[in-house]
Every structure is written in C-alpha cells, then in structure tokens.
C-alpha cells in the first residue's frame, strides 16, 4: 500500500468482480473509491451464497468483502430522479468513473460518458462488459463464466478425451480488472500530461482473446485449432501433475516440469537415478516427448509414496 493516489476520487457503478477488482488497485494505493450500490438489487457477490441463515445478510459475503476492501459505499435508488441526481453530482466530483453495467444502463440515467463529459470535459471513465459498448451482441448478458468460454479459455483447459472445464475462478473476471486498472492508470497519466480525458471501452471477451493471441494466430497462420493437452506441453517433458501420498485423507499433488535436458538430469539425480530414468532414450527432450507416458508413469510411481514436501 502506498499513498500514490491520495486525493484521487474514483466513483464505481456495478458489481461482481471485473469492475470492483480494478478499482481496488487504486483503493490500495490511497484513492478514495466510492461504490454506488442499490439496496433493491444488491451486488450479486453479496448474495451469491446467501441463505436465510447467512450471518450479516448482504454484508456477510466474504467474497464481496475481499474484492471491496478499502472502499466506501453509498446506497442510492437509481429508479428515482433524486437518486440519479446524487449519482450525477458524485460523478462530476470524481476524478474518474468506472462502471460494468450492461451497455445502455448508464445512458438511461444520463450518467454515460457522452452525458457527463459536457459538464466535466477532462473526465476519465471506463466501461467494461463482456462484449463491449458497440456491435450487434453488445447486450448479451453474462458473467465471467461466459466470458471465459467466448474468449477460448474453456476449450483450452482440461483433458483431450473429456469436456472442457475452464480455468478455475472465471478467468476473464481476473484478467479484465488488471487490464482495466492498466487502462485507467494510463488515462490518468495522459490527463496529467495533457489535461485531457477519455472514455475507455473494455470488452472482457476481447481482452481475453488478446491474451490468447497465440491461439488465434496459430489458426489464422496455419489453420490449426489448438486444443486441450491436459498438463502436457509440446515443448517439454515431463510437464505434468503427479499424485503424492494422501495427507489427512486428502489428495495431494505435485507439478513437475523439465524444460530441457539439464533439468531432466537434475530430476533424475533427485529421484535417486533409477534404471528406467537413466535410459538413454529419455536423455533428450525429443525422446522424452516420444515416451512421455513412460516418463509420467515412472515419476508418479516415485511421487505416490511421498508427501509433496518430501518431493519438492
């Protein structure tokens, strides 16, 4: 934590993860971040796991708490003109505005960039939703689970002989806030240097596809569709996750990667140089890739009787 953004005011509309995690970067560095929330429609992370017996009710969500530490909250009823008027005063008072509603919601309240910029010419604002503010599918509703699937992460995660699973934690929900923080910070830098503001449109699906540029150009260059490889790599072997001895009745695992032949030599020594591992066929990456199942079986026979601590 630093006071880099002391005196900087950020007003935040929306909820979930993609918007709130982005503004937390600024809150953690001293900015005053104010969330505009609704009592009628609470942030879905406040109620995701809520049951009638949840302690603290809408304030009892640990998930919400983690993403929104260091922030202030103002509850406004934006279905009433008085509520919208307060939100507008806050937006014009702020240094930047972040929102992750569905496209069009902010315009309905005249809180969109085009409406606000007339009274605040140097406004810095970011809008982030799944598909972006324009285009025929802009109103498509969804959360990170859909964003991960649309951007291509799900198809690439899992086992080749099974269905895709998607990386844990709805990955576009964790990549997008980082991109949003980068965009906001760069816009603040630009404003500090030029006095000018801007509106940023971050489509979470597009951001995810840019991360996976290699996936797209492999197809546009060669027509090849990348698929799920489990934990294997086309460039290194072993490259996998191996079962260790259970601890306290729980499954435990260890990830092992040998990037090159020197790594492999060290690994062979570390496991006591058994005869199978000293096989010259396995001395090169090419050889280990050809006989990868054999390498994996040999390693797992060794890890299976050891705890992760003993292995590592």
């Amino acid at each position: 934590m630093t006071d880099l953004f002391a005196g900087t005011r950020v007003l935040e509309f929306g909820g979930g993860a993609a918007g709130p995690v982005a503004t937390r970067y600024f809150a953690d560095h001293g900015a005053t971040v104010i969330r505009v929330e609704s009592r009628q429609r609470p942030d879905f992370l406040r109620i995701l796991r809520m049951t009638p017996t949840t302690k603290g009710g809408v304030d009892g969500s640990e998930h919400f708490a983690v993403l929104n530490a260091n922030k202030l909250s103002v509850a406004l009823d934006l279905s009433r003109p008085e509520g919208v008027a307060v939100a507008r005063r806050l937006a014009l008072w702020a240094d930047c505005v972040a929102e992750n509603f569905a496209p069009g919601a902010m315009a309905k309240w005249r809180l969109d960039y085009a409406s606000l910029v007339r009274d605040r010419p140097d406004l810095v604002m970011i809008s982030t939703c799944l598909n972006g503010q324009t285009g025929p599918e802009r109103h498509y509703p969804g959360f990170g689970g859909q964003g991960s699937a649309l951007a291509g992460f799900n198809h690439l995660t899992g086992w080749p002989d099974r269905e895709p699973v998607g990386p844990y934690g709805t990955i576009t929900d964790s990549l997008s806030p980082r991109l949003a923080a980068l965009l906001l910070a760069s816009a603040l830098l630009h404003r500090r240097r030029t006095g000018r503001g801007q509106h940023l449109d971050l489509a979470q699906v597009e951001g995810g596809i840019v991360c996976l540029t290699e996936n797209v150009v492999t197809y546009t260059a060669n027509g090849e569709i990348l698929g799920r490889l489990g934990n294997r790599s086309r460039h290194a072997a072993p490259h996998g996750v191996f079962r260790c001895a259970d601890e306290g009745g729980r499954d435990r695992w260890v990830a092992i990667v040998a990037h090159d032949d020197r790594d492999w030599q060290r690994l062979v020594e570390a496991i006591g140089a058994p005869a199978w591992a000293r096989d010259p066929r396995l001395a090169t990456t090419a050889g280990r890739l050809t006989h990868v199942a054999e390498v994996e079986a040999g390693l797992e026979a060794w890890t299976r009787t050891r705890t992760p601590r003993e292995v590592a």
Partner: protein
Amino acid sequence: MTAPRGGNLDGTRVLDLTHEPGFFTGKLLGDLGADVVKVEPPGGDPARRRPPYWGETADPERSLLWLAMNTSKRGLTLDLERPRGRDLFLALAARADVVLETAAPGWMDERGIGWRALAARNPRLVLCSLTPFGQTGPYAAWRGSDLTVVAMSGNLFCTGDPDRAPVRCTLPVAHYHGGIEAAVGVVFALLARDATGRGQHVDVAMHEAMVMPNVGTAAMFAFSGFRGSRTGAAIRLGEGIGREIWPCQDGWVTFALRGGPARVPGLVAMVAYMAEHGMASETLRAMDWKAYNHNLLTQAQVDALEREFGAFFRTKTMAELYHAACERNLMLAPANTAREITASAQLAAREFFVEVENPGRGRLRYPGPFARATSADPAATAIGIRRPAPRLGEHTAEVLAEVGVGEGDLARLRADGVV
C-alpha cells in the same frame, strides 16, 4: 492495417529484456503507445526457435509464439554477457523510462546492470522485474514455470475433474496474469515518478499474481476451512453439484442453473425457448423461478433439472444456442475455438481483427486492440498494434544510432559478435 500513433503512453521509452513470461507486458505498453525496444541476444530469443512455425517451416522469423506476443515493439540485438554489450545497454537505459526483465533474481546485479547500477545513472528509471516467485523470500531463487506457479497459487488444485489430476490451461495463463500485473506496476510507477521525480524497482511475482483469480476461495478458506475442489464441468449447487458445461450437437456450451435476480430471467427465457421446441416438461414450465434458490437444491433436484436442459442442448449447435442467447438474453455461451472466435459477427462489427504485414512473410490476421478509447483527440489516445513483431536485429542500427553509435562502430560491434 493503418497503425495507430500517439497513445496514452506516447513518448515513454521501454527496453524489453524479457523472455517468454514477460513478452505480454511490453506488447501491452506498446499497444498504449510506448516506444518498446525488444533486446535479444545476438543469437535470438529462445522463443524464436519454438514451434509451431508459420507455414511449418522452422525459421526464427516464423515462430508463432514470437510473432504473437512481440507486436508493437522494435528489435535490437545485444550481448549482455560482454562488457561492450553491457555498456551499450547502460547507455540506452540512461535515456529510457522503463526497463522490463524476467531474469532470475541476481542475474542483472551479477552483470553490473541491476537496479542500483541503473538507478545511479538514471534516477527517473522504472525497472520492472517479473519472475516466478519475486525478488525476495525463500522461493526467490527457485526456477518456475506457468504450470508450477499456477500449482503453487492454489488455482490448479481447483481446476479439472475430481477423478484426475488438477489440470492447467494449455496456454500459459500465469504469463498473462503476471504480464498485465507488471504493466499495471509500470504505469503506477510512472505516475509516482511524475509526482516525485524518482523511479522505482517494481517486483512482480507470477505466483502472487495467480493467487488473485482464486481470491474468493482464499477468503472462504479463512472463514470455513474449505480448500476448494475440482468439480469438472460443474460447480457446487446447494447440497450437490450441477453441470456448467454441457455437450451440444457440435461442441460444448456453458450454462448455469444458478438463480439470483441477474440470472432468473435467463432461466425463465430458456424454459420458454425449450417449450417452443416441445422440450419443456409440465413440471419445468410450472417452476416458480422467483422462489428458486440454487443454494437450497438437493442433488436429486439438480439431476432432474439437468436431464431436461441437457437433452435440449444436445439437439442444437453452438452457433444456434449462442444466437438464441443473444436474441433472448440467455446466459449461455459456446466454448469457442479459434475458428468460432475469428468468425464472430460481433468482433467483425467492431473491426477487432487486424491484418499485420510481416515483411517477407506476408499478412497475418491478429486480434487487435485490447480496448477502445474515445476522446476529443482520438489519435492521441489510440490503442492497438503499432507494428509487427521485429525481425532479429531489425532495428539495431537505428536504436544504437540514438546513443551515438555510427556505422563504423556498428560494423566493429557486429564483427565482435556484440550485436
């Protein structure tokens, strides 16, 4: 492609010493308008020798990993193992704003080009180091990779099927998370420098960057001791687990049986869609979705719902279901491959894909801007690919000329293998 000029980081000079884990940081800074110079050893970065290659010809100018992640950069070769190479690097760093690097902690210091040496010559410089485990702590000296840091972060344990090992994404997500985190750190440090006049050393650990995506689980662990679990193509629903990824006619789609005010309209609309095709039972049509709380379902109730939704999805293609999702506000998405992604009507309407001319190799279609900026002066805020990934040493002469290396000097440097 008409390359954007200007940009929020226009005028920012970046020297990019990174290997694969850090490529994305410089690409993002370049897409925001920074002048990013990739510094490679004279033999080329190892990524250039990694298949697949464009056209399947093994050629350091055709590695798709290299071409994908080094757009918007100029390129320079410099041997940092030689004193003359290090002197030239220090001269370049003296007039740079940012240096990016991914070497093992200590590697830069051992060669006299670490943080102290750089800051002594240029107090305004920002050095950003992206490593598996950071510059300090008991793991700092450990080697790491995407798979091992994702495993250490806790993310891997929760990804995959319950009856198999935890599983990763086939492309390296830790590089994306860590790479963006490093870019955020750089711009924050530039803001701080503009205020104080002093640069700083930004220390980004991919291990730490990978903890954030599972922050909900980390919080739950503190409250409940629940360490997360692999549920495959499913998530926890009430007392049981429910499918989130469903087979359809030609692939897979995601759809959640979760409730809450944001999701119930989608469930209602999906049942109406199924009913139009005569595939919603009387029980399903009679459901009171307003009273529906997925946290209170029994496994038997989840199973009954799954049978009906699953049978319907199997009769439709990914494209049919996604089209219906857009028309009817269904929270359903196809598990897209590169084929569906490049065929998207939405991305076409937003002119997302760009053709990048790679001299001597042809045009290659890329994902374009990671975001759009609207402002009074669009050229001054444009985001997107500025130039193709550099060929090996493509800009060596032009970049070294900026620190006074003339043609004669350059010929000697080449003969000596310094560049």
